[in-house]
């Protein structure tokens, strides 16, 4: 096989991986601060995908333009979910949190099934079949836009946590819960805000994802699992880790498909997870727990 093939597959893998990373980022942010693993993460993404599909079908609004409003809707929903349902479970055993979020995920899947039926739905933008030819490289236009949007959104999120007072306060909560309470931070509000930011992330990722894949109600659980694999590989709670994990899984799937057999590409992604758990349990960029 020529070098061109490897190059094309590598670029496609990186672009898909960037969107995977953005999707997993929300999960990582929530766990890093609230210490709750959102097992309804993929299902929340499917809500965003359906919002994008409906907006496109009804008003021909491009998912990339609708990315911010959809993230806004998920932000509000995430804030309400945290304050109304998840907050009482923060101090309860982890299995209670797990059951609560799995139940929320199941409810989302079934409501979407009732509303939209089981058929796959897609967004056919004017550039759905476009690609750019740069020398030997042929880049899928939708994946390129999706990857670029993922990078921009991740940069905005990094900036928010690094340079804003609210972002600093949220990081303070993550670092020292008791200390944050002592200095007078409204921890409940900051937790809800964090969950809302995580939901907004997954909302944006969902809007972008409609450019790449069709949506069905049953899509959620498999993407919850994928997000989980990515953040565990990158390091639970680490934002750069989520992006790195996404790119790594995207590349692994792409090259496993090319060099071995495409039908077993998920197996290789899980293989990476097993190796990380064996040799670096805290994830590639995660902090070692003491």
């Amino acid at each position, binding site marked *: 096989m020529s070098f061109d093939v490897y190059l094309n597959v590598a670029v496609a893998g990186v672009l898909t991986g960037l969107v995977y990373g953005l999707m997993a980022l929300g999960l990582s942010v929530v766990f890093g601060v609230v210490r709750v693993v959102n097992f309804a993460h993929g299902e929340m993404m499917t809500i965003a995908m359906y919002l994008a599909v409906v907006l496109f079908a009804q008003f021909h609004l491009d998912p990339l333009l609708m990315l911010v409003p959809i993230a806004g809707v998920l932000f509000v929903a995430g804030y309400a979910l945290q304050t109304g349902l998840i907050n009482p479970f923060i101090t309860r055993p982890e299995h209670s949190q797990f059951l609560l979020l799995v139940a929320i995920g199941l409810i989302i899947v079934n409501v979407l099934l009732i509303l939209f039926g089981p058929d796959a739905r897609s967004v056919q933008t004017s550039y759905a*079949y476009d690609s750019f030819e740069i020398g030997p490289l042929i880049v899928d236009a939708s994946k390129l836009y999706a990857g670029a949007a993922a990078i921009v959104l991740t940069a905005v999120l990094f900036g928010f946590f690094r340079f804003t007072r609210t972002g600093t306060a949220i990081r303070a909560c993550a670092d020292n819960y008791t200390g944050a309470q002592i200095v007078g931070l409204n921890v409940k509000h900051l937790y809800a805000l964090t969950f809302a930011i995580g939901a907004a992330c997954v909302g944006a990722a969902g809007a972008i994802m409609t450019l790449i894949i*069709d949506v069905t109600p049953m899509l959620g659980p498999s993407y919850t699992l994928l997000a989980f694999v990515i953040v565990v590989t990158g390091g639970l709670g680490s934002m750069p880790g989520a992006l790195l994990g996404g790119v790594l899984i995207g590349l692994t*799937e792409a090259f496993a498909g090319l060099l071995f057999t495409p*039908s077993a590409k998920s197996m290789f992604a899980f293989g990476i997870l097993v190796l990380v758990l064996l040799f670096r349990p805290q994830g590639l960029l995660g902090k070692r727990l003491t």
Partner: protein
Amino acid sequence: MLRVPFKPNRRDLLAGTAAAAAALAAPSVLRAEQAPLKVGVLLPRSGFEAGIGQDCQRGVDVAPAILKSLGLPALTIMDADTESNVDTARARAEKLINDGAQLLVGAFDSGQSAAIAQVAEQKGIPFVINIAAAPDITEQGYKFVFRNFPTAGMILGDAFANQLELFGIVGAAPKSVVFMHVNDTFGTAMSKGINAVMPKFNMPYKIVDEIAYDPAARDLSVEVAKAKAANADALLLVSRLNDAMLLTRELVKQRWTPQAIMSMGPGWYEDQYLKTLGKLSDGPLSFVPFQDPNKKLTKALEAALAKSSPGVNLSTNHVYTFEALLIAADAYKRAGSADPKALADAIRATNITDNVSIGPGIQFNAKGQNDKLKNGAIQNRGGKLLTLAPKAAANAKPEWPMKPYQNRG
């Protein structure tokens, strides 16, 4: 002679009422023998095969009126969704039988049909397979399982014969192909069969690469990149519906139009494929079990479908699902009873020559397989399905090679 006026007493009234009840009941006893046969129809109405399952349902929807016009008894249809899942298919088959189904029909997919066949055999309820090609299903010695659909080996043999016929007509042939197939029961059976069947036909092409993929995959960019890298003239495929659409999108994006796309399975001729992809759906050839457009019953089925589902092209899903119900109604009429064994015996003795599919008609061999079915070679053109081969069923000439995707406006 004195005429005594009739004054009925209680005993007379009771006797009269009993006689009247018996007289009224008699026709209903007769009617009970003609009561509709309860047929459980198992299809993948949701999940990744939902599009095809719902298309098969169209064949169910048009059946009652046509069966009535043929003078066959009515059927009561009991719908069940296999959710494109083998375990669910098994559970739904058991539930249908528990709920009173007297015969089962389904289930489009080989894995799901194999699971239902086990249940049907255990419970002693006849099962007529509409679509499923894995050869093993009718090799188990089952007494209650019947298949009016070709096996993978039959499909492959006919596909190669039809391909040679087309290559002769157009005076051209690919020298190399990449074989892409789904990795489910059907795809694997076809993959195994191709190595056994292809050498018998002296095909002009070689398979330069074989790529198996997940039928539920949501991204096939790597698969298409790999196929393109093989520099083959044409693509040989065994796919489903969603993956056929994904593959086409990737072919367009990766700017590769093979000389021909030759499918030996579903997907490429489906109505949803034609409607979703518009001009991009033109060109693929499907070598599949199909209807004979020249048969009388085909025209009736086509007219009924045009009425119930305007704009939908008649195709394999409707034809074989309808024929499964035709077999059920025909057997029920001859059996004169819904007794499972009588029904199974009647199905085994089926001899329907006024049918829809290509071939001499519907008969079953000792294994419960209709081994007389024939493929058709179909090409998508302008949103329609044209039959190119066999010659006896053809209504168009092939268009070769495929028009490049980039030049379709």
